[in-house]
């Protein structure tokens, strides 16, 4: 297996970069300041066939390999982290269906998702169940050939703009979270479903992070994914793959910060010379660049392994997300430092990049959860894993 980008990958990168530089980057500051979902950019991405890359061609998608999807996210994130969430979450929300859906379910939803006409979101997290997924409380009670949902979800990215969501709920309260959770496809215009509020956040401010309420929402049994009780497994398998999107996002954010810092340092003069010519600054920039490259290459290696469907996939994707997220935070903080006072004001993009970077250490599994996953994989390999893990 090779994960060296091919000329096709390079061409994709060039095309997305042009689009990102001409149409997305100029909007980034406004999106952040107004905290508005960039509907215009969603339409642009849809038009350019960039929201269908994880869907099969028979649904109107372009079925790009995971490395290409990673590069796509990376290039958009370099321009704007908020906008990069559009393709990221489109895949995140669809993955449960990709992994566990029937052909009939895919036929029903994938065409509109691949074209970007519909957005999809992933409804797992609850107010009292973040890292501790198993303590989810939302109930889905069987009634004839429907399930009735009651409860709420929190911190759902795009929850207020999605047309359809994959939602996880407890169908067997006695069995507990791990064995009694099921996955469903819920359409947003279902009566009783609402997205009453969105959070005010430190970063990715243009991405609506919604609270969702389900008040006797009726969902057809035909919308259940897999068997009852398989929800937890589907959720974990989804996250094993989707967290790579966050790794790609983090790499992109870091690269954007490096580019801004280098450009500034090459222009700005102090003490009679360019800031870029001071050895101390050069050391900072070198550390930023080499660490970002390491994160990038690990992300690409993980991407190749997703397509190779290796048995220790979580080891790779969690390592990538762990390293990339921490790198993005460090690099963006250093970028602000390189710009000095100008790095702190909103006229320059690096303060936004630093605020945006933080989320990559938190969502789709905190860095602490990622460490648990990597450790568990290590112990399994060494044959010394704890019983039942």
């Amino acid at each position, binding site marked *: 297996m090779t994960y060296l980008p091919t000329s096709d990958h390079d061409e*994709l990168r060039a*095309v997305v970069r*042009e689009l990102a530089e001409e149409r997305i980057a100029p909007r980034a500051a406004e999106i952040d300041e107004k905290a508005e979902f960039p509907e215009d950019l969603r339409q642009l991405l849809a038009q*350019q*066939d*960039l929201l269908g890359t994880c869907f099969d061609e028979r649904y109107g998608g*372009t079925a*790009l390999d995971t490395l290409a999807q990673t590069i796509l996210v990376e290039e958009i994130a370099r321009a704007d982290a908020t906008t990069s969430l559009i393709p990221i979450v489109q895949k995140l929300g669809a993955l449960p269906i990709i992994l566990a859906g029937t052909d009939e379910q895919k036929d029903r939803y994938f065409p509109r998702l691949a074209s970007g006409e519909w957005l999809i979101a992933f409804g797992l997290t609850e107010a009292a169940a973040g890292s501790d997924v198993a303590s989810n409380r939302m109930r889905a009670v069987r009634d004839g050939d429907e399930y009735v949902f009651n409860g709420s979800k929190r911190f759902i990215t795009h929850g207020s703009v999605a047309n359809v969501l994959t939602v996880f709920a407890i169908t067997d309260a006695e069995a507990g979270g791990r064995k009694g959770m099921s996955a469903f496809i819920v359409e947003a215009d279902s009566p009783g479903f609402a997205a009453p509020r969105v959070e005010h956040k430190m970063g990715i401010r243009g991405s609506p992070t919604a609270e969702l309420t389900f008040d006797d929402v009726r969902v057809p049994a035909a919308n259940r994914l897999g068997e009852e009780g398989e929800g937890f497994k589907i959720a974990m398998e989804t996250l094993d793959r989707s967290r790579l999107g966050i790794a790609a996002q983090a790499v992109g954010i870091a690269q954007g910060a490096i580019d801004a810092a280098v450009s500034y340092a090459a222009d700005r003069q102090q003490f009679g010379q360019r800031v870029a010519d001071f050895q101390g600054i050069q050391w900072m920039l070198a550390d930023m660049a080499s660490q970002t490259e390491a994160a990038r290459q690990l992300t690409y290696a993980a991407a190749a392994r997703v397509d190779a469907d290796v048995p220790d996939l979580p080891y790779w994707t969690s390592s990538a997300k762990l390293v990339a997220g921490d790198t993005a935070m460090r690099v963006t903080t250093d970028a602000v430092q390189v710009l000095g006072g100008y790095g702190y004001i909103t006229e320059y993009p690096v303060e936004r990049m630093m605020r945006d970077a933080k989320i990559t250490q938190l969502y789709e599994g905190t860095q602490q959860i990622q460490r648990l996953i990597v450790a568990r994989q290590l112990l399994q390999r060494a044959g010394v894993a704890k019983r039942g893990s």
Partner: protein
Amino acid sequence: MKIVVCIKQVPATGADKRYTDEMRLDRVGVEAIINPLDEYAIEQALRLLDAGTADSVTYLSMGPDQASEALRRALAMGGHDAVLITDTALAGADEWTTAKVLAAALDKLAPDVALMGMASDDARGSLVPGAVAAMRDVPLLSYGSELTLADGEARVRRLSATGFDWIAAPLPVVATVTDQVGEPRYASLKGIMAAKRKPLETWSLSDLDLSPDSLHGAALTMVTATRAPEEKPPTERIENVPAPEAAVKIADWLEQRKLI
């Protein structure tokens, strides 16, 4: 209605460009793009295709092998197929030679409209369209901000000194359009993937029944020297003074030069 769009691959603005020892423009090895003004011609052709007025769009380019990249990018925006004319004898070709070669290729492709952009970014010549029209004995409709086709006739909307005119000619024509056509579309991902499968033919001079001799050894003109431009006197600057004071200084400057 068949449209052939003639495009040129040029060095990207800002890429390092230079003349070689043989006094030729060094094109190989620099980042290359579709001549920006040709993108408007592509966009105009594709709009006519979208509207159903045209039913085929072919791209034509003369250049080194690398120029096939520009043709693939054009195909990624839309259109059906492409032709690249490439031949070692064409190195250093000037405008007349380019026109001669394109005219021969267009006679072979026989479109209703041969569409081109206004000028090329690097050498800034804009005589190729008119020369092609003269060589083929076909009407020229130039500098259009819009092109329409109907009833065996083509029309371009051209800005005049004080308004605009519609200029018409019977088909077939050579037409050129300006950037007022509107923003060229981006190539979509599906477009890029489809472009790889669209036919791209390569023709040499012999395919056009042209011999290098008939092209005067590929150029009627020759560059005999190159030099750096004259040192321009440094720009005078007025800054960090209040507006009324600046105004006085500017007015003094104008008076010194007898402009007021």
